[in-house]
């Protein structure tokens, strides 16, 4: 089996499981489960946004949650002011994308190195967090929407069918929307990465200087990648605001940014399916750990195992030290070496026969 047919097999596998999952889950599962799964799907879109920027574009972004939060807040604020969700939905994508473009222009055209890129994106996230967190008073409002500071914004109206205010999307509809969005994002990014643009950004990640010497302007390509990633994260933020009908500044927080990084590291940079798996796996783990808490005893060990940051920290350290490529690429490597070994064994098996 060569690379191409393996690729097609992967695509078929993802589409079939994805579609089956989307269509069957609401039929088979409890509503609570469907609700939980919805947020996994939304976060997986967020994971894909960083998978593109970091895993393929090679841009170290420690502040992906900034775009996510911006998308969620934009949707909420626009929704209170407008009341019909078509425009708020679009704004929740456009505004984070514009912000990413501005920030990206500043960083890439300023030729800021990787490490500083990490620090700047982190700092921007903190600025947003601090600013929004301090807007608790009634004097902070945009139009009719109060920002609410650290209390957040509750009671955000749900999405409706485009231009039809009365047809609001219900919980089950939200699941279809989130899962459909994830599948669309996944396949959209596959297409993007297979295009000339996608191959060039991977080339730039591999060797920026060489790409330049071939006549490609890395700054422009990185800016475009970063902007697309910002738009996707904003989109995920919009869905998230819909899911809980609530946003609060914690979605700008460092903990949220760390999570996104962990999903991508665990799943594997340079793949799309990896970060999706990493995201769902880690969220499931966090939920399971959180669920431990009430029933668990009050001794130190049960406190430790009920403690998501602690476990996530250990996972991050362990992956950086032991599995730096992430799960999917590492499993791929293992698979490949198994195939090679078998081939080598087969060949050795043939040789004596030929000699006879």
């Amino acid at each position, binding site marked *: 089996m060569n690379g191409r047919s393996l690729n097609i097999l992967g695509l078929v596998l993802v589409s079939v499981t994805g579609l089956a999952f989307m269509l069957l889950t609401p039929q088979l599962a409890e509503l609570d489960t469907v609700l939980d799964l919805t947020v996994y799907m939304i976060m997986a879109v967020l994971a894909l946004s960083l998978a593109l920027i970091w895993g393929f574009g090679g841009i*170290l972004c420690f502040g992906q949650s900034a775009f996510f939060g911006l998308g969620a807040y934009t949707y909420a604020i626009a929704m209170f002011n407008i009341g019909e969700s078509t425009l708020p939905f679009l704004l929740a994508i456009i505004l984070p994308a514009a912000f990413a473009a501005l920030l990206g222009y*500043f*960083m890439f055209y*300023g*030729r*800021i*190195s*990787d*490490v*500083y890129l*990490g*620090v*700047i994106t*982190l*700092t*921007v996230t*903190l*600025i947003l967090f*601090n*600013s929004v*967190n*301090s807007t608790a008073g009634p004097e902070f409002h945009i139009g009719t929407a109060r920002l609410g500071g650290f209390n957040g914004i509750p009671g955000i109206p749900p999405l409706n069918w485009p231009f039809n205010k009365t047809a609001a999307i219900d919980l089950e509809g939200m699941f279809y929307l989130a899962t459909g969005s994830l599948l669309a994002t996944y396949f959209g990014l596959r297409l993007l990465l297979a295009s000339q643009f996608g191959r060039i950004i991977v080339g730039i990640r591999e060797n920026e200087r060489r790409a330049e010497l071939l006549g490609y302007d890395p700054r422009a390509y990185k800016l475009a990648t970063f902007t697309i990633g910002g738009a996707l994260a904003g989109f995920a933020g919009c869905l998230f605001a819909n899911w809980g009908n609530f946003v609060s500044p914690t979605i700008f*927080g*460092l*903990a949220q940014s*760390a999570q996104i*990084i*962990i999903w991508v*590291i665990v799943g594997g940079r340079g793949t799309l399916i990896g970060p999706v798996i990493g995201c769902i796996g880690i969220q499931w783990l966090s939920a399971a750990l959180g669920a431990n808490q009430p029933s668990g005893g009050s001794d*130190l060990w049960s*406190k*430790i195992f009920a*403690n*998501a*940051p*602690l*476990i*996530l*920290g*250990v*996972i*991050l*350290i*362990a992956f*950086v*030290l032991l599995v*730096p490529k992430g799960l999917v690429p590492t499993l791929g490597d293992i698979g490949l070496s198994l195939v090679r070994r078998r081939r080598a064994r087969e060949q050795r098996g043939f040789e004596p026969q030929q000699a006879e």
Partner: protein
Amino acid sequence: MDLVALLAIQVLYAVASLALISVGLAIIFGMMRVINLAHGEFLMLGGYAAIVATSHGISIWVAMLVVAPIVVGLIGIIVERAIIRFLYGRMIDTMLATWGLSLFLVGLTTAIFGNTTVGISAPLGSIQIGAYRTSAYTLFVIAIAIAVLGAIFAVMRWTRLGLIARGTMQNADMAAALGVNPPRVYAVTFGVGAALSGLAGAVLAPVSGVFPTIGVAYVAKSFITVIGGGAAILSGTVSASALFGTINQIATFVTTPVFGEVALLAAAIVLIRLLPQGITGRFFRRGL
């Protein structure tokens, strides 16, 4: 007039506390090119070390100035041996692993101490400046910052350790050429950086209280101070703290503390854009 004096003290305090929380990170970054994202948690651990020590009847001065740096310094050495040393030369992986360490330490302290703010009261009273009162502890923090920076200056300038440190700062291979054992130098450096962070965290504990996630409040500020300052440890820390501390305090004075902080972070981003090598990459290149 009194108001000016008060404002001057507050600006000086902002600069001093910025220098204090950054200098440990600056040493680790300047000498090892390691960006330690768990730096804020080292400060947090310093605060807890002081609080636990005082609750066991140790004098608050000893707890802050002796116990905290020793405890956090030892933790630093363990961290260097267990994690950092496998990642030398992989700057980004180091950032990620130390971010993991940061989460781990937050989780661990939450499990042990709970998610509430613990305070110790500032040990000094207040002083009168004309019509205004200010805490004497403010002056103590300024004095500690000056003492710490002075001590680093003395070590760098006049001791063999300082010579090695300056050598490594300019050229990583130089330490090896001098016949020193680089792994030991790195472990010691990391320990010293951590110890200074522990000291800073403990000294600031009476001002801010201590809670598991307090590191977040410190980490961005100390980062931008270090990166804004550039490679030279002392002159970088001092110049960047002076710049950012002043901006922070004046913006706070004019608006609110939150926007003071926002102004500081925004100023830092602009500075990094204008001077990617930091202030000392452009000026005071021959500084320590």
